[in-house]
């Protein structure tokens, strides 16, 4: 039995034997002492500076006043079902919201929405000619020059035929 206790505490006991060994632990005080001693050895080897007196006897004494727990299997299953049900409801709600939003933009309404958005576009401003130099100098900082958001960070470079194998223009990202 001691060898089974040793394997059990390492999580290396065969599944079929676990119930039998745990039943033995429940019945036999000496077997529980072996379990405690083996764990103490492990704790000493891992943390020799953190060893203190055994509290289990004191906790056991205080546990005398505590009622035995009787959590029914149904209760545990119910709790798991509740968790699953809540997750399912949340997922369905999310799908429902997305579906509802997509239905709001039906093919009939879409052109109207597009028209409204066009109407909301800001009118183009007349830029003073004296601002041109300033805008030219700072155009790289303007988001409006971005084609796909990152174009302003890309530089076009080319290599001569003599010193580079590739013949086509290449682009490289310019660290900014």
């Amino acid at each position: 039995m001691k060898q089974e206790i040793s394997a059990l505490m390492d999580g290396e006991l065969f599944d079929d034997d676990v119930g039998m060994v745990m039943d033995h632990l429940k019945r036999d005080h000496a077997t529980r002492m072996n379990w405690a001693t083996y764990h103490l050895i492990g704790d000493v080897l891992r943390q020799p500076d953190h060893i203190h007196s055994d509290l289990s006897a004191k906790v056991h004494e205080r546990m005398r006043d505590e009622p035995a727990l009787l959590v029914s299997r149904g209760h545990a299953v119910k709790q798991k079902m509740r968790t699953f049900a809540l997750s399912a409801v949340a997922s369905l709600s999310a799908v429902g919201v997305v579906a509802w939003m997509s239905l709001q933009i039906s093919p009939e309404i879409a052109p109207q929405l597009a028209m409204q958005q066009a109407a909301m576009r800001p009118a183009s401003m007349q830029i003073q000619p004296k601002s041109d130099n300033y805008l030219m100098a700072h155009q790289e900082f303007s988001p409006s020059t971005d084609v796909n958001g990152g174009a302003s960070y890309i530089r076009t470079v080319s290599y001569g035929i003599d010193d580079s194998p590739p013949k086509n223009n290449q682009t490289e990202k310019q660290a900014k």
Partner: protein
Amino acid sequence: MTERDVDQQLVERVQRGDKHAFDLLVSKYQRRLGRLISRFVRDAAEAEDVTQDAFIKAYRALPGFRGESAFYTWLYRIGINTAKNHLLANKRRAPTSTPFDAEDAESFEEASLLREVNTPENELMSKQVVDVVQASLQQLPEDLRSALTLREIEGLSYEEIAGVMNCPVGTVRSRIFRAREAVAENLRPLLETSKGKRW
């Protein structure tokens, strides 16, 4: 079956009314939990009381434990809350202003702190326990010592140890057991010397 599965099975047994299964969890985690709580409660006697309180609270809260996290993670959260509530009740601040979780707290290396708060009697006893374990380990044959060290200190699985030691898993199982039992043989007389205070 992993260690976590073993804990879960013990928890389910406690939930079905088996108090002895809870004793096994206490035996397993008392020193780790005590070490964690002593990060907050520096007085040794108080830390011991708070550790006991944490176990009792854990027992009472076990009907709500669903196994979504590992048992020790759940237990350590209870331990930290119990320690902080204890300090609040005594209107003291936790000894650290930095928030940390159970794993961080456990990994702290501050042995001097524990030595400070241990009573001379406790310190002597713990020193004897450590000496006996370490001396017994040194007396073991090389293969047993290696197997036990790889398991307890390196945390390797039996399969990994079998790979390292180039032997079957069954041999690893046997070597680890024989090593533990040899050390336990030397330890038992010491553990049973102080009446009512087993180490």
